[in-house]
């Protein structure tokens, strides 16, 4: 990961928005989602206040410098001596803004459980085996067309304590830095037809079914590599420029 910042390697990109769409409450799941018990003591009780988009909010960190990303950081199947157990997947897609413009040079970070549904994390006590050939973390930077590509294995579902027989649908965590503080997003990618969807309060906290479906990867038979790896597509849309900048905010 990056060890230096600022000054060195700085490169201006001149088409950056000066104001971003303000997202309504319907764009994301609510902070107070009673079925997801951990929200109970962690969601603010008072209404969020309005933050104007000043220079601090429309600028963002330069962590997407490709020179700082290791050559195998995008390939979670080649980070150890042997191959991890599981279905090999290519997970690829584009990072776009709401105008459809590709976001190039932005950092994409992922983390996930292994094929048995176990995370390489001290707090994960699920009684499934760790895989000595799988750490479960990857990162890459989008190219000029906003594309990213990871090679990994399909994560397993796993039980958790939210309610009786709660199982998380299989998922890969995604972190998107975007170009600006205003574009920061953390989300999860799921696979279609997961049997645990109807019971998962995190997935279902997104009230709109069409919005939930934006978190589903799509199987791509054309990009699937014969006798080697399935290809799954996952496009991510970060909020784009406001149609009319608010003059009072500039």
């Amino acid at each position, binding site marked *: 990961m990056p060890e230096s910042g*600022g*000054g060195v390697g700085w490169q201006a990109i001149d088409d950056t928005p000066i104001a971003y769409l303000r997202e309504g409450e319907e764009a994301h*799941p609510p*902070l107070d989602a009673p079925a997801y018990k*951990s929200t109970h003591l962690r969601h603010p009780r008072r209404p969020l206040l309005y*933050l104007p988009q000043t220079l*601090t909010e429309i600028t*963002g960190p*330069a962590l997407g410098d490709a020179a700082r990303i290791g050559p195998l950081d995008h390939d979670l199947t080649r980070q150890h001596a042997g191959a991890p157990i599981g279905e090999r997947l290519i997970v690829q897609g584009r990072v776009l803004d709401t105008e459809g413009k590709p976001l190039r040079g932005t950092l994409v970070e992922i983390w996930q459980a292994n094929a048995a549904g176990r995370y390489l994390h001290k707090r994960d006590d699920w009684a499934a085996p760790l895989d000595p050939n799988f750490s479960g973390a990857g990162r890459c930077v989008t190219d000029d067309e906003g594309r990213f590509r990871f090679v990994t294995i399909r994560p397993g579902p796993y039980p958790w304590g939210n309610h009786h027989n709660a199982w998380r649908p299989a998922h890969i965590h995604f972190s998107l830095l975007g170009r600006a503080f205003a574009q920061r997003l953390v989300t999860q990618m799921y696979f279609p037809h997961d049997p645990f969807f109807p019971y998962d309060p995190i997935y279902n906290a997104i009230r709109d079914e069409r919005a939930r479906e934006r978190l589903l990867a799509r199987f791509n038979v054309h990009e699937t590599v014969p006798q080697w790896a399935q290809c799954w597509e996952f496009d991510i849309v970060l909020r784009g420029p406001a149609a009319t900048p608010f003059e009072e905010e500039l």
Partner: protein
Amino acid sequence: MIFPTTPSQTVGPYYAIGLPWPQGPHVVPPGTPGAIRLRGVVYDGRGAVIPDHLIETWQADPEGRFADLHGAGPAGPSRLAGFRGFGRCGQEVGDGSYEIVTVKPGRVPGPGGALQAPHVDVSLFARGLLHRLVTRIYFADEEAANAEDPVLRSVPAERRATMLAVPEADGYRLDIHLQGPRETVFFAL
């Protein structure tokens, strides 16, 4: 708008696999003159520490310039050697605290071109947060600048102290409360 945005999901309890890195809390490189520590503890609605939170910060340098890849604003990019402007602090097994090593930001323009008081933008992620929480850290010893800051002035007076970091020997401290009588001011952005 052509495409709807991808919805947010929680960072979950195991983000430490993928997100923190050793230099993450270092907004400035070790040995930077005038470096300060900005620290605090994050509490839930019962007053218990939240051990699995992730804090990210974004700020200008002391001249009010950003380490931004995409334009950096009218003042131009930061001239401070190694200034990243971004901090990320999260632990695999945490004690509820956060700490970044940084420099006090300068003043940057706000609404209408008036200068804002020195501030640090904060994103807070955790299990149980389906979307990041956004707040700002201001500095309690910047009384004159704080008094004319447009964002602080938009916050009810009795809640402003929840955003004011208090000076300590080697920096500043601000605790964050997700609920309760001292609930931190959080923003929609």
